[in-house]
């Protein structure tokens, strides 16, 4: 499972993606992923918002994750 990182999320983690290996315990849902991430990198808890996209659509915390999904962390957007 790979999780893409953008903007400040990339700076917090220090790379542009997080890779979970076969042996890692995979987050089962968007909510699990957010909890896991915030536990490992407390800086995520300080952001104005933290969204997750699954297969390039915004996903609620209840959405389940599978290893084939394209998952991305969406920190507060600031286009325009």
């Amino acid at each position, binding site marked *: 499972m790979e999780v893409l990182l953008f*903007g400040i999320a990339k700076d917090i983690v220090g790379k542009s993606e997080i890779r979970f290996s076969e042996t890692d315990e995979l987050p089962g849902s968007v909510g699990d992923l957010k909890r896991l991430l915030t536990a490992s990198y407390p800086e995520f808890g300080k952001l104005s918002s933290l969204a997750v996209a699954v297969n*390039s659509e915004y996903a609620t915390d209840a959405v389940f994750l599978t290893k084939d999904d394209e998952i991305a962390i*969406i920190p*507060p*957007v*600031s*286009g*325009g």
Partner: protein
Amino acid sequence: MEKLTIEIVDHIDSANVYSELSHPQSGGICVFVGAVREFTNNEEVVALEFETYKNMALKEMEKIALEAMEKWELNKVLIRHAVGAKKVEEPVVVVGASSAHRTACFEASRFLIDTLKEKVPIWKKEIFKNKSVWVSAHP
């Protein structure tokens, strides 16, 4: 000609937009151009750097354009955002619409830029002389 123009590009040429939105049934054409401003909170900005999650950003931009076309009677809609480093006065985003009468394109253009800023996965970093800041990241 396509009714919708949705693009993420390296460089915006705002001079082309008028002809892109021109349409025989449109008596009104509105364009909003967002550009790099020199000062943020009295601090001099050297440049802005934009990055995007491109395939999702294009999808979100298309949704916004389609929503605008449901709300107003528009003949053409355009949303174009630039990525990469942009200097002061350079255009970074352009949105616009054309319609039979002016009210629809004025209102739609406002909706396009406001919704883009709220939903589209694009991130802006302000580069100052001694630091850089991801805009809106923290409360």
